[in-house]
């Protein structure tokens, strides 16, 4: 991973370019804000997320409850922050593991013998052909809902996508002159993969990851909405939404509270991911 993260002044130049891309910069700001709020959720929360207060049910926003309360009088703002923790935890853990596995399998497929590549591709395509939600339903029915189950589902369904991207990049790099030069110098396959392939596939991978976060967050929220994710009373954006849906006639605020963060995450990470792609692509296709 360290090889992937070597900045080489890339970081500085990327930040400079980002300033010229207002949407992307806005996306980055949202990403950072969400990151800070979720990591430090207990600090920023005003109440305990599961603290019930039956006298303050379904209240609109006020000085006491910034986003109002839900049907059990729990402070929505604090629940949203803690729900964010769940969403981000799932995203980061699941995507990191998916990336790691995807990189390993993708490089194996791209650089290894043809038969292995064909086998792996069949594997990837098989997994990808399952409809995600049905697959999730099946797994939850077998194992029971929990945070780890959700993470596991996300990993299994995401790995093929990452592996495919890595495989394509590796296949393309395989024939490049500098890889040939390394082989001509007698470099081992391991050395080539570690020092020459990995740093050059980092960019598309991070772009994919960035654009993947909204999807993973959506998946987690969707599963929680269906009651298949984290179990109550743990706050999750999906469960806030499902509660809000049930009480929509009484108060719109739970729905709004649950919906806004989803929208923001999706917009923020998507804009950021697209800006990343714009930054890296012209660099990759350099013309003098």
């Amino acid at each position, binding site marked *: 991973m360290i090889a992937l993260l*070597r900045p*080489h002044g890339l970081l500085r130049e990327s930040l400079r370019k980002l300033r010229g891309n207002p949407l992307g910069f806005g996306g980055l700001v949202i990403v950072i804000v969400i990151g800070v709020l979720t990591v430090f959720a207990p600090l920023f929360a005003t109440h305990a997320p599961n603290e019930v207060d039956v006298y303050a049910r379904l209240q609109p926003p006020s000085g006491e409850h910034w986003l109002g309360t839900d049907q059990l009088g729990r402070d929505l703002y604090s629940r949203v922050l803690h729900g964010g923790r769940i969403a981000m935890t799932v995203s980061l853990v699941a995507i990191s593991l998916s990336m790691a596995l995807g990189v390993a399998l993708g490089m194996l497929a791209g650089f290894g013998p043809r038969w292995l590549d064909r086998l792996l591709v069949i594997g990837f395509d098989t997994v990808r052909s399952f409809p995600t939600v049905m697959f999730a339903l099946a797994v939850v029915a077998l194992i029971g809902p929990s945070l780890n189950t959700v993470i596991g589902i996300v990993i299994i369904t995401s790995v093929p996508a990452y592996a495919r991207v890595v495989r394509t990049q590796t296949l393309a790099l395989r024939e*490049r*002159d*500098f890889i*040939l*030069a*390394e*082989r*001509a*110098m*007698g*470099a*081992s396959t391991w*050395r080539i993969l570690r*020092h*020459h392939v990995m*740093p*050059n596939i980092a960019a598309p991978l991070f772009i994919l990851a960035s654009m993947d976060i909204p999807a993973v967050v959506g998946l987690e929220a969707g599963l929680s909405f269906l009651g298949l994710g984290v179990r109550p009373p743990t706050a999750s954006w999906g469960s806030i939404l499902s509660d809000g849906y049930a009480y929509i006639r009484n108060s719109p605020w739970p729905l709004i509270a649950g919906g806004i963060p989803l929208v923001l995450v999706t917009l923020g990470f998507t804009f950021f991911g697209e800006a990343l792609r714009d930054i890296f692509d012209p660099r990759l296709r*350099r013309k003098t």
Partner: protein
Amino acid sequence: MTTVLEVNDLQVRYPHAHPVAARLAGNRYPWIDVVRGVSLQIARGETLAVVGESGSGKTTLAQALMGLVPSAGGEVRIEGSAVPRDRRNRLMPDRRRVAMMFQDPIGSLSPRMTVREALAEPFQIHRPGRIDANAEAKRLLALVGLGAEFAERYPHQLSGGQARRIGVARALALEPALLIADEPTAGLDVSIQGDVLNLLTGLQQRLGLSILVITHNLNIVRHVADSMAIMYLGRFVEQGASGELFRNPRHPYTRALFSANPSHDPRKVAERMRLTGEVPSLMRRPAGCEFHTRCPLVADDCRVIVPVQTEQAPGHRYACLHPLATSAPRLP
């Protein structure tokens, strides 16, 4: 005179993509011969140029010698010792004795590595851990006439000429006996082509380096090569000392190549040996002399009989049934 490189009957084949179709089309074997029995020798301190056009197999020859592609047959000796092959039939030359310089100078450098790291690669691969990367980088840069400040640059920050020098520097890191240069002047402006060539000949004199140059540019061959080999469809049609070949080409293809120099001199244009048609596909090799489909001097027996190699003067070999007379008019 020590022989640094000796190649005997080297062959490189690629399997046919569609073996059944190939059989039906009349091929005896389910493969394509890209290099079909090449033999050559390079002595210490000498330069041999392999000249050919596209489809001749010259780059494949270089890649086979470096073990980048498998070779089906033939023996290769470097400084007298035979080069073994691995399980996939790729030659395994000692990479400290043979090094290669690639055609695309910037593309052959790893884009995310600085010049210093790129120059340290050969050491890292063969003698890990025991080097001072900075010192070696400085030494190698100086060897090719570049200042130490280039060590911090990335490949995309180099010009074509500078990147080429760094390619040379990297190839010379472990002080090899033989350098294989694949199209060393490709893509370079005429006004700086001389730079790379002068560098190579200078290094040759200083270090006693042997060089195998792969090129399609005959004009530079005259100035850098002691001997040359003309390649067509995977075979050498003529080879020998450059001076001898320029004075007395015996094979029509050699003469056609020499005269394929556009010029404003109408005399030269008139004397030009013109070829007809295009290079035949490797999948449908012509019968008899493989050059007969384009040869302006083709005779009936050329279509049927495969010419054997004759040795005209020591070292000057060619394969043609009706070679050009030795009193052919002197060509530039």
